[in-house]
């Protein structure tokens, strides 16, 4: 496994440009086939698909954790945030210490990274919990810490690997709203992997539907609702209709 940086792309507004990306693992499993995908500035793209369709592999290629076996995987963003399925906090570090970690690894001076962390902790609404240890936090709060940790990088492109999948419905909806607020305020572009169609539609400017193995794109939907989004949009017929269309495409692709 190499960590070679993906090839840069030239267009200034396109942060991620995948052309005909293919991923075959050493054991012969074809995880991705002919994937074309772009994420521009101001876009929040969600990818929905069945388990094991290579959605996460897509993110791993975008972040440089994996290298595509064929096609071009261009990433033009310098600062990339990555949020894992689990909060992946270091249990011996306080909230403050965890949020500072990435800046610390980037050799940012102590005072500067403390200020960055403070700001990020405020952004996710965790002020007052700086000294707490991860084991003293609820699952939702841990995920907020994880978000804050990536926010310290001031990312242009934010990659999310099913970050809220393990949370209960109420916490999840609450964090969806927080994420939308951060998207509007912080102006990063997002690529969001999820199992949940309604979460994808609610968060995104575009929803991509992937089929099962080998993973390929079987549907693209523009989400017309304006940002910032009203939480009540989830109860409108237009929203329900779009969720229905995406779900339908997902079922078709799964067949």
């Amino acid at each position, binding site marked *: 496994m190499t*960590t070679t940086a993906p090839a840069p792309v030239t267009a200034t507004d396109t942060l991620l440009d995948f052309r005909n990306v293919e991923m075959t693992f050493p054991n012969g499993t074809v995880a991705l086939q002919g994937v074309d995908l772009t994420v521009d500035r101001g876009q929040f793209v969600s990818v929905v698909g069945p388990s094991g369709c290579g959605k996460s592999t897509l993110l791993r290629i975008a972040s440089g954790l994996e290298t595509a076996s064929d096609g071009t995987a261009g990433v033009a963003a310098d600062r990339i945030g990555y949020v*894992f399925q689990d909060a*992946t906090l*270091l249990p*011996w570090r306080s909230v403050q210490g965890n949020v500072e970690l990435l800046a610390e690894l980037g050799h940012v001076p102590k005072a500067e990274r403390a200020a960055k962390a403070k700001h990020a902790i405020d952004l996710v*609404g965790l002020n007052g919990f700086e000294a707490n240890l991860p084991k003293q936090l609820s699952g939702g709060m841990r995920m907020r810490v994880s978000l804050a940790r990536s926010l310290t990088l001031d990312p242009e492109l934010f990659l999310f690997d099913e970050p809220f999948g393990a949370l209960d419905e109420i916490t999840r909806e609450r964090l969806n709203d927080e994420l939308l607020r951060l998207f509007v305020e912080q102006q990063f572009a997002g690529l969001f992997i999820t199992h949940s169609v309604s979460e994808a539609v609610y968060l995104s400017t575009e929803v991509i539907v992937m089929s099962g193995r080998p993973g390929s794109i079987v549907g693209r939907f523009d989400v017309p609702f304006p940002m910032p989004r009203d939480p009540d949009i989830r109860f409108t017929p237009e929203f329900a209709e779009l969720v229905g269309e995406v779900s339908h495409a997902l079922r078709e692709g799964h067949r």
Partner: protein
Amino acid sequence: MVTLQEVAEARTARTAARRSSTRTRRSVTWWQPVVVLAVLVAVWYAAAYYYDHVRSLAFLVPYPHLVLKAIVAPTGMNGAPSTFGHDLWTALGRTTVVSLTGLAFAIVIGVLWAMAMAQAKWLENSLYPYAVVLQCVPILALVPLIGALFGYEFTSRVIVTVMIALFPMVSNTLFGLQSADRAQHELFRLQRSSRLARLVKLQVPAALPSIFVGLRTSAGLSVIGAIVGDQFFQRGNPGLGVLIQVTASRLMGPELYATIIIASLYGVVVFLVFGLLGRLAVGRWHDFG
């Protein structure tokens, strides 16, 4: 604006904090072991009575109060104070020095060995079998060789101690260094951090709970090692092991029992001290048993 959700999350956090603090607090059960001790002492008195009056071999099982007297105010046959008290505490001091020296070497060697193995699978495959071999070698079989090579004094005692105490340090440290999960490693890789940074900021802190478990086990074993080493190598400054053999061969019952009890207490103290160190070091974020 404080929403219900935030209130709920804060409450969950407080409950979690409270739960974890009660879990680490020890419940007060001091009287239960005391009852067991009383029963043991009673059985001991009965056995001592049997050996004294029925078998007429009082030195084999001396009365507990005679053993206690041998520890706090030993007297000779004629009732005058004997030198046993001095011998006992000197021997304890020497055994302490040997066991702690051996333990220090076991810690350094064990942690470095495990760190080397944690760097690459091929290193682990090459080096781990020898840790197991070390664990399987009957130390007794090596004693004549160690004595011939390093003399029958301090050095050889320490070497035996290291050999006995090393394995738990190696295996527990290795287990701990490998306990950080894949996503945590990837978090560091995404920042292009060096292997050293990953070792120092991720693997070593993650390993600390296991390292302290290993340390506590090794500390107990180092006491055994020092006493065993003593019994094999009788030259130089003798420790508790030699004193046990001398008092046994001279049929000094109370003194023999006194030495055994002090050696055991020393082992218990070492175990407790290193357990306490572990709790102080990682108890804040890890439930250290």
